[in-house]
């Protein structure tokens, strides 16, 4: 099984390195990958039908509790079939749809990466593993949405989708970690062994909150829904695969998976019913105003996802079976409609429903597929959609009194609007006569079978499952529903329930929806009237926040990293004064102990006075030469201080170096212009204040440091052993060239490097053109 899961990643890797082979017609062969995985999983059907749960475990990071644990049950099986089955159709379809695209190999690499991640997500038994695959699906979705990377809109949508789903992923991780802490395990199988445990934990509310944000962002629930219409910038096969049939259902999968663990709790039920209910109505209402085929499909997908969340929220046996069936129903007809939209876009060059019509004359078989998908989405009897719709009404009718009267109309309105969306996309482009703008005929007259067979298969399956409902029921739906519910459900799907309220509701749906379809056309003005509401929309708020954050980061960076050296020095100094000063004054009690201090002799005072005067001159003079000379006087005075206090070596070095520096300074700089006179008094005052405080602080610290006795151990060792061990009598010299000889050698190297630098700077010839 691990090979089946990881083969997607392997394929992506191979394509990344040797993709050129599959850029041409050979790309069709890549469809064999999902097809073979599909066939591999068919082999598990007998076990799943017997109600078994198949587990596989591979050691990965046992110390962290992360193993490649996979678990195949009814729910996973349903998703695996969707991922690989629809995946195979998409692979074949894309080979023709994107034929001749220069990055076709890259496309398949992303697609394989996605398929592998998605399989891993629905099969993983370990929550951390789920998180990893979850993020991988977000990333591959990002690449696929931004596949047309020369389009700015496309890039923006990709970023938006990544931002929303990626952030959701972090919430999910938080939820998983909290669950892991509460249950002491990351294995879903072990958690499922004690289903009621998590509900009694104090962390339950938090776990739920994080899980909801994670799944809602992925499954495009309000208020995170807006990335999905944007994601329609992706090539149509991607929209069909990721953004309607599989990836957006990952959030649904997650809710379904944790339903036995966390569900059947007031918080769970109400949140899901309210969010799902609102989303399905909100999105369905939006879809009515759209003219772009893909936008209609996007909003009706959001609506369908809302319906699924809603059903999982209700959580009764009817609702769970309805959810499981509707996942399959929706995947079949929505993927089909997307593929048909792709064909229309490919051949007619437009997706605006106002400019389309009569296409049945071009492609009768595609029109047939569109009709089947639209009928299934409408829930017309003898299609699988009818059974799905029936179950939804059954679910809402089998709730308690209050809910029965509120939820049923809600579902009814949504279904009517969804029917309209299905008809608009599946039938309208093919009905009527061909408008003038399309009179030239299709862009590619010979339609490749790779394009029209996949939607026809999907449409055919919708009818086949509708005619023989026990087939999908026995194979997929009942086992998936049992997994979601947590115990076995026996509630067979039926074509005919007899004359009852459900049938009446279905009839009302179809009649009202058809009436809407025939009587209503979206007007152009309706978009403009909604404009002022846009400011409050979650999408606008997200973009606004993003833009403001970017501006804030820009100004903040510009303030701190402004490129002026002196402002950095100022910041560092002020910070140091604050930090050290605070610590110093809050913890050290100031004492002055002058007993050990030496007395001041007259000539010392003279030297001191000279140094002070020279320093002040250096700072305030307006002549560069004066500054250099007075600086050298400071150096020489310090030299004298060294002499007075028993440091002849220092005095000699200081004298030499000081002289050299002054000579160098004068030689190089005497030709420089006068100092700039910047008489900004405020600035000088501020800098002076900062400098003064810093100097005072250093003086105070020095005064305090003198009180504590210095550790003389090292000095004594050197002094005692200078002659005995190193045969030298000048201890300073012995330390430098003997005890710490290696350090001195490195120091010499530093000087050599500096000398090389100086030399090369002097020799450097800059061409006039380089000066700029």
């Amino acid at each position: 099984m691990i090979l089946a899961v990881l083969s997607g990643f392997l394929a992506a890797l191979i394509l990344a390195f040797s993709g050129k082979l599959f850029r041409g017609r050979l790309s069709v062969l890549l469809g064999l990958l999902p097809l073979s995985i599909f066939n591999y999983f068919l082999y598990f059907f007998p076990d799943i039908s017997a109600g078994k749960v198949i587990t596989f475990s591979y050691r990965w990071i046992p110390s962290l509790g992360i193993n490649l644990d996979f678990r195949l049950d009814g729910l996973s099986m349903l998703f695996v079939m969707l991922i690989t089955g629809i995946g195979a159709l998409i692979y074949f379809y894309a080979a023709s749809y994107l034929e001749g695209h220069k990055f076709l190999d890259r496309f398949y690499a992303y697609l394989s990466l996605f398929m592998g991640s998605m399989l891993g997500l629905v099969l993983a038994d370990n929550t951390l593993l789920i998180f990893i695959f979850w993020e991988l699906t977000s990333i591959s979705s990002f690449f696929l949405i931004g596949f047309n990377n020369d389009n700015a809109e496309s890039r923006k949508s990709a970023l938006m989708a990544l931002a929303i789903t990626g952030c959701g992923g972090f919430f999910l991780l938080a939820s998983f970690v909290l669950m892991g802490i509460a249950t002491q395990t990351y294995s879903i199988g072990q958690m499922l062994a004690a289903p009621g445990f998590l509900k009694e934990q104090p962390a339950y509310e938090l776990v739920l909150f994080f899980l909801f944000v994670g799944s809602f962002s992925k499954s495009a629930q309000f208020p995170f829904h807006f990335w999905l219409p944007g994601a329609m910038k992706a090539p149509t096969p991607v929209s069909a695969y990721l953004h309607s049939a599989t990836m957006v259902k990952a959030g649904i999968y997650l809710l379904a998976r944790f339903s036995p663990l966390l569900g059947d709790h007031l918080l769970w039920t109400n949140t899901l019913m309210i969010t799902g209910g609102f989303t399905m109505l909100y999105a369905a209402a939006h879809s009515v105003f759209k003219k772009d085929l893909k936008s209609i499909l996007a909003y009706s997908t959001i609506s369908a996802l809302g319906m699924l969340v809603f059903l999982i929220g209700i959580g009764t046996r009817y609702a769970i079976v309805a959810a499981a069936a509707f996942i399959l129903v929706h995947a079949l007809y929505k993927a089909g409609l997307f593929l048909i939209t792709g064909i229309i876009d490919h051949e007619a060059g437009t997706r605006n429903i106002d400019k389309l019509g009569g296409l049945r004359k071009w492609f009768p078989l595609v029109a047939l597929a569109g009709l089947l998908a639209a009928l299934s989405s409408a829930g017309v009897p003898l299609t699988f959609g009818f059974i799905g719709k029936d179950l939804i009404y059954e679910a809402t009718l089998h709730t308690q009194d209050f809910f029965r009267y509120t939820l049923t109309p809600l579902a009814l309105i949504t279904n009517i609007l969804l029917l309209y969306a299905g008809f608009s996309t599946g039938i309208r482009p093919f009905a009527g006569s061909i408008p003038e703008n399309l009179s030239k005929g299709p862009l590619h007259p010979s339609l490749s079978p790779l394009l029209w067979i996949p939607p026809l298969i999907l449409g055919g399956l919708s009818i086949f499952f509708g005619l023989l409902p026990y087939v999908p029921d026995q194979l997929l739906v009942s086992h998936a529903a049992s997994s979601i519910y947590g115990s076995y459900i026996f509630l067979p799907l039926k074509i005919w329930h007899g004359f009852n309220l459900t049938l009446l509701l279905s009839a009302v749906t179809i009649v009202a929806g058809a009436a809407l379809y025939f009587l209503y056309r979206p007007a152009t003005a309706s978009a403009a009237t909604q404009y002022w509401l846009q400011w409050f929309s979650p999408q606008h708020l997200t973009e606004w926040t993003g833009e403001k954050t970017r501006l804030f980061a820009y100004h903040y960076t510009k303030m701190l990293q402004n490129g002026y050296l002196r402002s950095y020095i100022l910041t560092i100094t002020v910070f140091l004064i604050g930090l050290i000063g605070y610590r110093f004054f809050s913890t050290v009690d100031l004492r002055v102990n002058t007993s050990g201090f030496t007395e001041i002799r007259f000539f010392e005072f003279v030297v001191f006075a000279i140094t002070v005067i020279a320093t002040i001159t250096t700072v305030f003079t307006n002549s560069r030469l004066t500054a250099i000379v007075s600086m050298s006087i400071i150096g020489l005075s310090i030299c004298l201080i060294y002499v007075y206090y028993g440091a002849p070596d220092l005095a000699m070095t200081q004298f030499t170096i000081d002289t050299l520096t002054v000579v160098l300074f004068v030689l190089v700089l005497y030709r420089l212009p006068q100092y700039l006179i910047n008489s900004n008094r405020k600035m000088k005052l501020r800098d002076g204040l900062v400098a003064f405080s810093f100097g005072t602080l250093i003086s105070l610290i020095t005064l305090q440091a003198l009180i504590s006795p210095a550790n003389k151990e090292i000095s004594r060792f050197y002094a005692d052993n200078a002659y005995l061990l190193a045969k030298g009598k000048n201890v300073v010299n012995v330390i430098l060239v003997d005890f710490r000889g290696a350090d001195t050698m490195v120091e010499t190297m530093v000087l050599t490097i500096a000398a090389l630098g100086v030399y090369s700077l002097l020799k450097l010839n800059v061409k006039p053109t380089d000066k700029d």
Partner: protein
Amino acid sequence: MEYLLIFLIGLLYSSGIYLMLRKSMVKLLLGLILLGNGANILIFLMGDIAKGQPPIIPRDASIFTQMYADPVPQSLILTAIVISFGLQSFAIILLKRVYQMTKSDNLDTLNTHEIDI
């Protein structure tokens, strides 16, 4: 004498910082040198200054018999002086080259600002 040295350290530090906060490159360099001098005296002072007793073992002895100045700060300062010379000479030459290229001593003119990110 310690008082005077402590005052001197404070003065050199604040003058150094003040000069480094100026716009001129030469002042920046002078400030750095002053700061270095201040730091040297600080280290020197930490070694309990003892007058007139260099850390040199008398000619006729193999170990010290009298008080001696602390040799460790001295060797540290010696290293510091030499290294700072390396830095200073490099900086002076660099300054000269920069001036040759830009005809300016103003640090601000060396900045390139990105207009927008």
